[in-house]
């Protein structure tokens, strides 16, 4: 299945009145993410959080970056889908231009990007940006 666009996600989420509906939606986004092959769960691909782990694999084709991502936690997997909506199959410069903080604020999810959250999401975004930056230079 194809990911919705960031704008679609922002619009979808604005329809929900309560937090339960919002998180149900995010968890479902995570369920729709293509599964990552277990064999890719290697230490090099691991972004370790103190509470949950994130794995990220990246490849380049035609100047665009393609990601496979996974997490052992449902909500983090959903948040990865939210991030991937913005990053998947984009050019490095598009990735670097994208304002993740504002996007997460629009979704009222900014607390998940806060440095106090040990969920690996912030570190994962930083890693994607570093990769994009390296490819771009």
């Amino acid at each position, binding site marked *: 299945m194809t990911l919705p666009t960031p704008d679609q996600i922002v619009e979808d989420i604005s329809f929900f009145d309560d937090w339960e509906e919002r998180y149900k939606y995010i968890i479902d986004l995570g369920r729709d993410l293509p599964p990552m092959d277990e064999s890719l769960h290697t230490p090099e691909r691991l972004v370790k959080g103190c509470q949950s782990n994130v794995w990220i694999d990246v490849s380049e084709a035609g100047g665009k970056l393609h990601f496979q991502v996974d997490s052992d*936690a449902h*909500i983090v997997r959903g948040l990865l889908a939210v991030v991937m909506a913005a990053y998947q199959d984009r050019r490095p410069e598009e990735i670097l231009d994208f304002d993740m903080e504002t996007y997460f604020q629009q979704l009222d999810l900014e607390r998940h990007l806060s440095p106090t959250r040990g969920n690996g999401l912030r570190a994962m975004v930083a890693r994607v940006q570093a990769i994009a930056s390296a490819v771009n230079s």
Partner: protein
Amino acid sequence: MGAVINKQAFDVQAIRRQFPILSREIDGKPLVYLDNAATTQKPQCVIDALVDYYTTCNANVHRGAHRLADEATQRYEQARDTIATFVNAASRREVIWTSGTTESINIVAIGAAQLLREGDEVLVTQMEHHANLVTWQQACKRSGAKLVVCPIDENGELNLTAFGQLLNERTRLVAFPHVSNALGTVNPVKDLCQQAKAVNAWVLVDGAQGIAHEPVDVQDLGCDFYAFSGHKLFGPTGIGVLWGRESVLAEWPVWQTGGEMIATVTYERAIWGELPGRFEAGTPNIADAIGMGKAVEWFSALDMPAVMAHERALIESATEQAEAFEGLRIVGTARNKVGVLSFVLDEGHPADVGFLLDRQGIAIRTGHHCAEPLMGRLGVPGTARASFALYNTLEEVGALFTALQKVRNLLG
């Protein structure tokens, strides 16, 4: 457990009113604070003691030739006396102020690294918090001693047969927790101390989780060191205690050097001071020591049998509801448990559980609880841990399980 009897003996609502933070709300819902194994909340009298110290008599202790210094020193040393009485130390010289349990254990481990030799053994358990594991692992690395780890059983109890077998004439030091922070298992401390003493080993008890739940009489327990923190005992963070048997402590290598810990100093050498000062280099954490003294005073004034009965009712109720909860597995089912319900849900990672409970105003901890090897031993990446203190109520235990139903619905 008769709720009526508890109410007569122990008024939990009256206790709660002394903790201002407990009336807080999280996203419009009443805070249900079940992360007491991480840190406990503070009663108003402890908060007042801190404010009062800085408001009326802040000064450096043991030094100044003025009134404030006298008053500060008196309060600070009175707090030490309070601790000494509380754990039934033979003398106030046995009570060393530290920054917390971790520093207390480090003081002993750093000294041990100088005393241990190749061929010596240090015995710890599979249920250690990292503070009582990495410290000994490193002391062994530095000294050439061997770290031996006593196994636990599936239910999270120490394997006592193995413990007895692993003790031998090479065992120089034995370290174990009074209560496991991740599982709540209460260890038979007195029995373990006796066995360790029979082979002439030093014994350190990590009391971080024991001190707020179990009566502690260090002379009766028979250990050489007992380490604990103020903040898990309704006191401030950044302060803790190392209790050490005077005959052992007096011979133990000093760790930090500097002011306050010396008797005389020349440019060439220094003579260490007497206990307890020789382990307290530099200006101490005066305010928090006084705050911890106040916390212990407050705690000691409670009806302890009633407190323990109340806490037993909490853990029993939590365990009953957990056992009846479909798709939940309790991690750590020791017969003697206190304060902690660790669990995993079939649906959902502990991080999901913690987050979705937080959205409902319920504070728990998730993860490996600074006990990574223990989680590995139990075959889980981590757990969700609800931990109770004397101010928690049976209604709050009920609220946890109501909220968990919602978590399961969201994740299922």
